């Protein structure tokens, strides 16, 4: 009965960690590869590995940092595997390619527009993508982003401003008007 109680307590802690950090882990992976599905799978896998560590009695000082590190490694492994399977065509390029009946025109245009945004984001650095993802996907403010990235708030203000600037320049180069 003692073991059951220990596992139950551990499971509650694990669920709390998931609630607290899963979105941040997802954002980190997404920023790396711009692939939502892969980011979801890798996030789940990273948490399963965290569970194994916790269950074995390992103490993890900073779960967030540990999760992000594991998730990044998993993302790198997956990218290498995808390269071998698909060649130079990254998975995100194939997103939204469907056979069958044509979608309504406005939906197709919208899909095309956002596919273009994705390809332009891909031209930014991972650091720029990370800060933009935390800001716009999770709606984090600068102090929250600073906490995740482990830098001071002033640096975040500057990085965010520069990332936006670089993105705007690339959008202009590609002739893309930012429209909501």
């Amino acid at each position, binding site marked *: 009965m003692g073991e059951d109680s220990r596992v139950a307590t551990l499971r509650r802690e*694990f669920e709390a960690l998931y609630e607290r950090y899963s979105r941040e882990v*997802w954002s980190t992976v997404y920023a790396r590869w711009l692939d939502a599905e892969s980011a979801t799978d890798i996030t789940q896998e990273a948490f399963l590995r965290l569970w194994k560590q916790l269950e074995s009695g390992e103490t993890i000082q900073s779960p967030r940092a540990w999760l992000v590190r594991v998730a990044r490694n998993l993302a790198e492994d997956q990218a290498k595997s995808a390269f071998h399977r698909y060649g130079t065509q990254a998975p995100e390029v194939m997103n939204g390619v469907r056979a069958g009946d044509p979608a309504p025109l406005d939906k197709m245009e919208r899909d095309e527009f956002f596919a273009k945004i994705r390809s332009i984001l891909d031209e930014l650095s991972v650091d720029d993508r990370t800060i933009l993802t935390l800001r716009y996907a999770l709606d984090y403010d600068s102090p929250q982003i600073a906490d995740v990235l482990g830098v001071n708030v002033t640096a975040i203000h500057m990085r965010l401003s520069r990332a936006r600037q670089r993105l705007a320049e690339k959008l*202009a180069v590609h002739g893309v008007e930012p429209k*909501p």
Partner: protein
Amino acid sequence: MMNPTHDPTTPDDLDRMLSAYFARELPHPWPTCPSVGEPVMVQAVPSSRVPAHQSDSHTRSSLTLAASVAALLGLGLFVSSDIRQQPTARKAAPDSATAPIDLSKTTADGSRHPMSKQDTTSPMR
């Protein structure tokens, strides 16, 4: 397009575009926490599925007792009806067991016909 002195509290087109982009990318609903460390539950067999002969001994004893009483009663009825028939049944031919007894039949001289043994094959009630 891009305001160099962008006020983060006032969203511009770029902010709105990026918000819309990431809203499409985020999983909806958010994936649930992986199931970990769940104990394996062994389900007990419901009592309604337990065969009758495995019910508790008290019920079994009661049923056995009731059956015994019923058997004894039945035997008693049989024996008592047999005893009532016995005075005339003794005179009956051993093999004349099927003919019913007609107590109203008398011989011309008033003596009674010998009664045949009551049919012992009739079912007891």
